[in-house]
């Protein structure tokens, strides 16, 4: 094995297999947005602080601005575009709407993916667990209260 500057990768995104040649320096977030045109995943701070670029890779929430696209070769990636089935809202999306859990909406895709990661691993979280789960996602509009309520409501809807 010798190091390469670019390589062909195959990534399953929202259940669909994509093959592309990418440069090693390409970040996963740019692969999703610019190569696959999945622009729901946002770039906020580009320093790993804000969480707007959060996606789920092989079942784990990660910040896609701190992962190389080549590192996702062979992985299963979930983005905001895959959250709800076609034309319908996921329980979390419906709850965010009902509880006014967004204002400008920039952080929302990342917030929703962190919330999904939480409920995938812990279907009945406490308020403290919800707050810890979105610690890596910064929202400058809402003050988080409605986001926490929305996630709690979505969890209850899913438990029913």
């Amino acid at each position, binding site marked *: 094995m010798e190091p390469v500057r670019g390589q062909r990768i195959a990534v399953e995104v929202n259940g669909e297999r994509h093959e592309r040649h990418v440069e090693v320096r390409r970040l996963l977030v740019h692969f999703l947005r610019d190569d696959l045109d999945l622009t729901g995943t946002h770039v906020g701070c580009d320093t*790993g602080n804000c969480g707007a670029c959060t996606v789920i890779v092989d079942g784990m929430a990660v910040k896609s601005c701190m*992962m190389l696209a080549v590192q996702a070769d062979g992985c299963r990636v979930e983005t905001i575009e895959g959250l709800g089935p076609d034309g319908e809202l996921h329980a979390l999306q419906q709850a965010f709407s009902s509880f006014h859990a967004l204002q400008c909406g920039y952080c929302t895709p990342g917030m929703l993916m962190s919330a999904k990661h939480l409920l995938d691993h812990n279907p009945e979280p406490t308020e403290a667990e919800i707050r810890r789960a979105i610690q890596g*996602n910064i929202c400058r509009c809402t003050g988080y209260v409605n986001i926490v309520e929305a996630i709690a409501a979505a969890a209850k809807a899913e438990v029913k």
Partner: protein
Amino acid sequence: MLLAPVEYARPSSVDEAVRLLGAHDGARPLAGGQTLTNVMKARAAAPDVLVDLNDLDELRAISRVDGDVELGAMVTLSALLRSAEVGEARPMLAEVASHVADVQVRNRGTVGGNICSNDPTNHLPPVVAALGATMTIRGAEGERTVGAEEFFLGVYMTAVAPGELLTKISIPAGHGVRDGFASVPIGKDGTCIVNAAATVREGQARIALGCVAAVPVLLTCAAEEAAVREAVQGAALDPPSDVHASADYRRHLAEIVAVRAVEDAD
């Protein structure tokens, strides 16, 4: 941000990783990437070759060997905080891991990366120093072990030389020892302004202070408040000043955080 052009290899064995690190000047291991990716964006690091360790399952194991806890360098912070072995043997380690940054960072960030980056504000350098951990380093010449006292050499610098790889962190069983940790972070679970880890055995405390020097500052004293304060004063700390705290304030916090870490161990 666009990274500078860089080469990449993802080896499937530690031997191959060590060969790649030795064969290319400017090669660097890529563990969780939660520090390295960002310093590459900022052009503060410019490796020529990234040797991605993420396929090395042999570095992801957590095991008990004669009571000691052995952590593979690629154990993520999320795996560490969920580990039954760690929770049973040295629960403080899991507790500290749960306060590093946030879920996403803990899902990718690794024990080895946290230690090897040796940012003075990182959580784990003082923890492994206080616990008296031993690091196993693999290189072209074979394997060597380095104690925590000799491992941290300076800001962002450790005993792991170019061409070498940290493979394992061994934590002593700690029979009859109680562990504690305390910090003053910027916001809950944020970057530490000052932190301290402590182990207490038979009334004697071993304290490692973080964020106050280039490497963790180790102190030993009686596990009593007055003795701890005296030990910290006697260390003649010369911490940095920055926007979060002046040197004087860090010195003040060091005493308090050291006392709290010892109390936490009780």
